Each structure stands twice: as C-alpha cells, then as structure tokens.
C-alpha cells in the first residue's frame, strides 16, 4: 500500500464526494433521501470528528465507507481504494454503533476469531490478543462469555477487535456511548495513543465535549448535509467560549467590582458566588479573585455555547429543508 511513504502535504486517507443515499423503507413506500451530497476528507494522522445530531446520517455515511451499503450516487474512497473493493480493509478497523458480538464466545475467543479473519499469523496471534485485552483493560474477563459482558465491556471488546490487526485507520461509531466517565477517559486515551502512533482516527459522535477534547478537525452534518468542515478551534470561535467559576469567601463589594471589571453578572447563593467569564479573561479573573482573598471551588468550561452553535446549525438545516420543501424540490 505504501502507507509509510509520507509526502509533505498530509495525505487524504478518506475522501467522500457528493454522497447521496436513498432508503426505500419498504415495498411500495416512497424512498427517503438520507444523505444529500455529503463531501469531506480525512487527512493522515488526524483525529476527525464526524458530528451531528441523532438521525443526521453519521452512521449511514460510515456504513457507506465500510461498504455495507451502496451509495445511491457519489463516490467514497479509503486509502485511495473505492469503498466497494475489499483491498484496503486490511488497513482499517471498524467499531460499529452499539456493537454486538457472538455471545457464545469468550472475549479471548472473539479476538482470536477476528485476528484469524485478518490473517494475523498464528505465531503472533496469542500475543496480539493479549496486547489488545490489556489495552482495553479486559484481561480480568477475557475468558468469560460475551453474553455476560456489560455494555461498556462490549464497547471495549469492540475497540479491541477494531484494532486487532494494527490498522492504519480506525473508524469508530460513537466510541464513547454507554460508557462511564472512567470508560470515556480510557477510550479517549486509546484514541490519543493511536494518534501518537501515527494512525488516523475517524469518529462519529454527537457528544461535543469529546469532540472538543480530542478532535483535530470536524465535519458537522445536519439532516444529511455537511454544514461545516474544518479545524475544531475555528468552529468554536475562541471568544464564544466561557467557563463557570464557583467562588467562596468573596465579599459583596468585591464581587460587584469584579463584575463591573469583567462585564459579567455575579450571582450569590448563600456562601457561594457563581460567575461566568469568557475563556480569554479566565486567567486575569482568577488572579483578581485570588488577590481579593477568595477561595476557588471549581472552574468548569461551559459548553452551552457550543451546543448553541450546534443548534444553530440544526435550525439552519431545518430552514433550508423547509425552503426546499416550498420550492417543491423534495426527493422523489
């Protein structure tokens, strides 16, 4: 495949061009257009977030990429191969949404099964399986049947099987869904390790904090249309971001003063004082508060604004749809 031959310009690992997908819900029913010309590209070595609300078409796009469904029109290629072919699959790993595996196998058996499908040599097989079990922290349950696994454990096995053959690109559909905070952190760490190892990661999600934390670039999809594609920082527009700060031992006078200086409202709830400041001013506000002798109880990035952006994009999408509907341009 010549994957190691790096060029100066980041290579495009995934390329999607004008993808359209119609579903026919049943015999005689009108077909429904789920993807309206989706285009984007994923570059080598990045963590790419494919973000959108429920039903936006994320999973559908990923299914096209995995060759599970055929696009009605448009093209998609991975590592330069059309997704209809099988050649590139040696180099990709896939974690489906809510993965489900043969319940009658143990964790170790299912990983051996997938490793054999990928042609992992039998001499390396046991070691590879153990490595992956360690990576997803399932050594303790490796010889139990999958039917006894919890949702989080299945998600971990899903990650392990996706990575069993050390692929160059990992496609993860909602990798953090259904996980507890520790689980989410584990998965985040695994994804960051993949990036560190030079791998490319494509992940579907609607959880924005995850996107913000690890993604390099995102594409936002709403109702089957891409609304934005680019670096996450650009999308988040620095000045819109705020953080919530909770303080104690702050006199009423000082708090009024701080409020004026940072042009923000300060709420006092009993002993506690809550305030929201722009991320750009966070440093100086905290210094000022500490200088005034206040205790800092917590600082939490407030991502309501991110959700807000998200919702705006959704509303735009709806308006666009409605416009199309009025124009009589509905899909047949």
């Amino acid at each position: 495949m010549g994957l190691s031959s790096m060029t100066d310009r980041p290579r495009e690992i995934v390329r999607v061009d004008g993808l359209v997908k119609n579903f026919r819900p049943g015999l005689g029913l009108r077909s429904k257009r789920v993807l309206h010309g989706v285009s984007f590209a994923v570059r080598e070595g990045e963590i790419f977030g494919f973000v959108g609300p429920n039903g936006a078409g994320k999973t559908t796009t990923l299914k096209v990429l995995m060759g599970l469904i055929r696009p009605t029109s448009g093209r998609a290629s991975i590592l330069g191969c059309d997704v209809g072919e099988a050649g590139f699959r040696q180099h990709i790993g896939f974690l489906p949404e809510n993965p489900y595996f043969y319940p009658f196998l143990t964790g170790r058996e299912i990983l051996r099964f997938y490793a054999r499908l990928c042609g992992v040599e039998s001499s390396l097989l046991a070691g590879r399986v153990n490595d992956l079990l360690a990576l997803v922290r399932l050594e303790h349950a490796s010889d139990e049947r999958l039917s006894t696994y919890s949702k989080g454990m299945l998600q971990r096995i899903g990650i392990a099987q996706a990575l069993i053959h050390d692929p160059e690109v990992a496609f993860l559909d909602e990798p953090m869904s259904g996980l507890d905070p520790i689980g989410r952190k584990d998965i985040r760490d695994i994804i960051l390790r993949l990036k560190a190892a030079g791998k490319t990661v494509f992940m579907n999600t609607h959880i924005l904090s995850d996107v913000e934390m690890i993604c390099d670039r995102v594409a936002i999809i709403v109702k089957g249309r891409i609304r934005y594609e680019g670096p996450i920082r650009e999308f988040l527009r620095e000045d819109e971001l705020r953080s919530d700060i909770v303080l104690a031992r702050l006199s009423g006078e000082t708090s009024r003063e701080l409020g004026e200086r940072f042009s923000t409202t300060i709420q006092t709830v009993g002993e506690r004082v809550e305030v929201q400041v722009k991320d750009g001013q966070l440093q100086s506000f905290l210094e000022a508060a500490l200088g005034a002798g206040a205790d800092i109880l917590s600082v939490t990035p407030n991502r309501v604004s991110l959700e807000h952006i998200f919702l705006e994009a959704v509303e735009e999408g709806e308006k666009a749809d409605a416009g199309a509907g009025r124009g009589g341009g509905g899909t047949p």
Partner: protein
Amino acid sequence: MTGSLHRIWPIATNTVREAVRHRLLYTLLFFAVTMIGFAVLIASLSYVEGERIIQDIGLASIRLFSVGIAIFVGIGLIHGEVDRRTIYTILAKPVTRAEFLLGKFFGLLLTVWLQLLLMGLAFVLVSLSVGAPLDWGYAAALFLVGIELMVIVAVATLFSSFSTPMLSAFFTLGIYALGHLSRNLYFLGQEAEVDSVRRAATLLYRVLPDLETFNVSIQAVHGLPIPASEVAWAVLYGLAYTTALLSLAIYIFHRRDLE
C-alpha cells in the same frame, strides 16, 4: 484462494459452534431420534414386514428432521448475523461477502451433516436392535440425504441472502416440496396437449432441483440395487446445482445493502 480458505474456515467453524449451542437443533434432533425409536411401536401394529416399516419411518424421520434443521436453524444463523449486526465487524475485516456467505454455508453444511451422522447412528442402533437388515444400500441412502441437504442448505442460503427469515423459511420449504414434485410435474406436463404447457413444464423441471434424485430410501429398505454410477451422478448433480445456487446467492448478497 488459500487466503480465502483462511477466512472461510473460521466463519464456518464459528457457525458450527453457534449452531451446536442452538436449542432448536436439540429439539429437532430429539424429535427425530424419538421418531426413529417410536417407529418400533408403530410397526408393531403390522403383523408383517415390521422391520421394513421401522426402517421406512426411520429414514423418513431422518430426512424430514434434517431438512427441518437445515431450514429453521440454518436460516436463523444467517439472518442472525445481519439482524444482530455481527456481520458489520466481519465485513469490515478483509473478508469479502462471498467468503462470508461461503463460510456460513459450509458451517451450516457441517452442522447438518453432523446431525445426520447422529440420526444415522440412531437408525443403525434401532435397526440392529430389531434385527432389520443393514447393508451398504442404507449408507448410500444416508449419503444421498447428505447431498440433498447440501442443496437445501444452499437454497436456504440463497433466500437468506435477500429475504426475511420467515419468507426464507417459507420459500425454502416451498422449493423442498417442489423439488420432490418436479419430476412428477414434468411427466404430467409432458402429457399435456398444449405445446406451451409442455415447454413450461420442461423449463420448470430444469430450474427446480429434482430432489427425488437423492431419494433412494425405498431402494435401500427393499434391498434393490443402487448402482454406484447413479450415486455418482446424483453427487455431481447436487454439486453443480449447489454451485449454481451459491453463485446466485453471492451475486445477490454482493449487491445488497446491509442496513
């Protein structure tokens, strides 16, 4: 090719593994063995040819229940993969859909052959216990049941490649029935006055499997000769027909959306 085998084999063995954990398999196996034993009771109602009746019922039970297993367990096993989406992770590996389908097919075939062996054993034991004759004719009959099962599993695989489990089971049963009728329908059709009816009958006979080719249980039970050449032709026919069905199944499965 050997690469393909390396991928087909794990899928096939996994399918066997899943099947042998299937409760329905044991239920049907239990009924079959019960029927074979029960034949002794039924045959006692006749004052003559009791052993023959026992063997008639025994072989019929084997054929009926093994087809039942092929259809009802088999179809479930293929649909389960799509339904529960285990197929997603498999097809994301360097496994082609053809390899996947062939893996399922061989897994199912191994499963039904395994249970055929078990039922055959029960048949031999019952035959020995009532002193009924046993010779190579019975082995040939059971062997051809195995070939018929191969065709049926291929039919089930074909329908499963695009249809719902209920419809697949229904269609496969239909093909099974028609397959046993096809020869008679052909002969009936040839007697028709109208030319187009005759031609339609011929076409139908060509398209449908002639499953009576694989049915030599009467010959076995009555000690009639079963020429080796006839068995060889039946095997060849079965192989050719299975290949055709699987090719069609792969073609359809390749084009299908796995939603």
